[in-house]
């Protein structure tokens, strides 16, 4: 056993201070990873990718990988924000409505006043933060369960948007916006150009930001702690309202940013197209190992969750399975993944109980 066992029961002579950072510690870390949910996901993703590479010519191509990243950027960016809320012990499904509102407001005003990239993103982010703060205040101050608050705000935000826009599209987007960005452009052997586009850039930034927030800042660790034991967090003097404002505001901000990334990809703003995607995002994050009871989840896991669903759907198309089967496979994958983790956890606990 790697654990040091019941040290309370250890004889005084055998007591030893602290944990070491030498080889056994590294071995322990490796063992912990091998038992983790992320390890299982990674294994499945690698196996699936290998199978698809063998079965099709088109899976393991630069073009397909770029397409995968670009078309799943919206879900991925949102997943990085929703992860933070789930870890804090909350849930929010209103972020797609938030994104729709942010998209519409930012681009309407942007077109009217001729705004540039920075102003557009700042405005979409600000609208998102505002919507997130509304959620946070109701959830913390009135202690209403977060799912109920966000079901209500989803309908309120979306309802207001539909009423005030009449469901009208915006298609005449500014030229710089339609062009997007393409950095580090280069052509492959057959002359097809590749570049770092807006979708991939923001996707990478979003995951990096979430990772920094959760693992490198004190508030990030407070978010984990609050998700693990809210009463204890309060007793230790954590500011719960401030933390909730941060996590829901953060998800709102991320939703605002994601909405522009999506509008750029779709080359239009349609008020009705985003709402309904919230469960896809939730599915990806939960598949990545985040717990709905809070305190558990990693950015790496969320990336893998998004990746698995993306590769699965892409693979089904490439193999030629009718897209009607898509949802069936997605559902099955989620059920299998969470079952394996639950089962291995149970086995591990049973083994420990015997020891």
């Amino acid at each position, binding site marked *: 056993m790697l654990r040091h066992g019941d040290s*309370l029961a250890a004889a005084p002579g055998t007591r030893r201070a*602290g*944990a070491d950072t030498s080889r056994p510690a590294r071995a322990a870390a490796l063992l912990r990873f091998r038992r983790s949910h992320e390890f299982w996901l990674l294994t499945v993703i690698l196996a699936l990718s290998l199978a698809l590479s063998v079965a099709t010519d088109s899976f393991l191509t630069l073009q397909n990988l770029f397409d995968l990243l670009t078309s799943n950027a919206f879900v991925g960016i949102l997943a990085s924000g929703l992860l933070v809320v789930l870890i804090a012990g909350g849930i929010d499904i209103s972020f797609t409505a938030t994104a729709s509102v942010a998209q519409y407001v930012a681009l309407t005003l942007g077109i009217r006043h001729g705004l540039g990239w920075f102003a557009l993103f700042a405005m979409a982010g600000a609208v998102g933060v505002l919507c997130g703060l509304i959620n946070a205040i109701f959830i913390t101050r009135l202690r209403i369960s977060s799912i109920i608050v966000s079901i209500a705000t989803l309908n309120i935000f979306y309802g207001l948007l539909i009423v005030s826009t009449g469901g009208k599209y915006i298609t005449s987007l500014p030229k710089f916006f339609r062009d997007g960005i393409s950095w580090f452009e280069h052509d492959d052997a057959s002359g097809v150009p590749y570049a770092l586009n807006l979708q991939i850039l923001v996707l990478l930034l979003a995951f990096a930001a979430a990772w920094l927030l959760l693992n490198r800042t004190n508030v990030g660790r407070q978010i984990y702690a609050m998700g693990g*034991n809210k009463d*204890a967090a309060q*007793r*230790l003097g954590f500011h719960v309202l401030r933390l909730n404002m941060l996590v829901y505001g953060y998800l709102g901000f991320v939703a605002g940013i994601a909405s522009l990334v999506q509008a750029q990809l779709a080359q239009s703003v349609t008020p009705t197209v985003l709402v309904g995607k919230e469960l896809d995002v939730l599915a990806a994050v939960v598949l990545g190992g985040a717990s709905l009871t809070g305190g558990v989840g990693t950015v790496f896991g969320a990336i893998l969750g998004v990746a698995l669903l993306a590769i699965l759907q892409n693979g089904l198309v490439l193999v030629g399975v009718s897209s009607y089967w898509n949802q069936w496979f997605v559902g099955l994958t989620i059920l299998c993944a969470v079952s394996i983790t639950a089962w291995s956890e149970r086995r591990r606990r049973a083994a420990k109980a015997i020891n």
Partner: protein
Amino acid sequence: MANFLDVHSISKHFGGVVALRDVDLSLRAGEVHCLVGENGSGKSTLIKIISGVLHPEPGGRIVIEGREYPHLNPVQSTACGIQVIYQDLSLFPNLTVAENIAIAGHLGPPRLVNWRRLHLTAEAAMARIGASLDADARVEDLSIANRQLVAICRAMAADAKLVIMDEPTASLTRHEVDALVRLVADLKRAGICIVFVSHRLDEVMEIAERVTVLRDGAKVGEFPAREMDDKRLATLMTGKAFAYRTYATDFGKSQTVLAVSHLSRAGQYEDISFEIRAGEIVGLTGLLGSGRTELALSLFGMNRPTSGEIRVDGKLLALKTNAQAIEAGIAYVSEDRLNLGLVLEQPISSNILLTVLDKLPNRFGLVAEKTRQRVARKWIKDLAIRAPDPDNAVRTLSGGNQQRVVLAKWMATQPRLLILDSPTVGVDIAAKDGIYEVVRALAANGVAILLISDEVAEVFYHAHRVLVMRRGRLAGECVPHESSEAELQAVVDA
């Protein structure tokens, strides 16, 4: 020696209810002090005042290390080195040992986490009390005893000079309690003052200097711990005298209800044979891990034995599920009454009727409200459950009354054999007495009772015969009336 803390004439009312009346308490540096009282005696209010969560009424004074704090708040209290370890430990199960210990570091500036410093803080705190936990293990994977150790380390990391521990031994095994006692002795040598808050005579009192007893918000007195024993403490806490004695009884003529012969389950217990007669209370004790709970679960159909026989009223049983055990007239009241025994949000009546739902319906398959009320009321009356209304949620009852609801639930099945697994864990002394009364009454009605307990005194005074298990085997048997508590203790500890 100088006092670390003095509080004088502390009073506190909540609405019209007196929580504390003119209470004094003084704690010396390096002292182990016990604060005892029944539920509602004002212990927790006093702790909250010392930790600055509540403020005393005018006239009360709080002096810490010679300095008076007219408006003590939690930040000042922590800065003075006062740390409270609540019964639930307030740990973060999803975080590592190191992070739990050094959690306070996440509160202040700088804004970024310094993982190296955090580990050093945690390791320094562990080194101070000689703990050797894996700093990277997650707290949810630790035993209760080790979690408690983490909570103590966290107090150390906060430079505690006074550690107040609420019911620290409630969920520890005897072995773990011994280790805690050793640890507390170390802390004491380091000049740290420790206060144990409890509603019973705790093992930790062995190393305490003084005991302060509270009753109904007032201080009964302060006593040297050496002079304290179970009975005296119970009397001081409740104002009532509890005198237990053993009884001579002869069950030779009673019918045998339970007959277990050569019962074994690989790895858990081996070759167990005993009988219980109608009206007899048989105690079963032994150290944790001796196999007694596993045996009890086998008798209740939840842990299939590998060989041997179980007979109830002479009928051989092959129990595969607990439904079959209930059918055969066996009832089981679990140790963990709050988790396994009761649906806390549901009314008392519904909880009692839970086990007999299939017997209540009339010929239309519906349960008449009148029948429901009648059956529930009968048991509430028979077991003297103090409840204003059977439709109140079980959550609203006191611990002792909740335990009686569990008993009522099982008595409603009219069992032949009742298995009680540690029925008085976490129950205060007056409520304990009430439970013993109920158990005796049930036995007098002809129910055979198997009383399992960690506490040797409990089985000694409340069972007619005591079986001792050790490492999966029956190691001895004793008839309390013809023996002494010390003799029984010796068999258990052998």
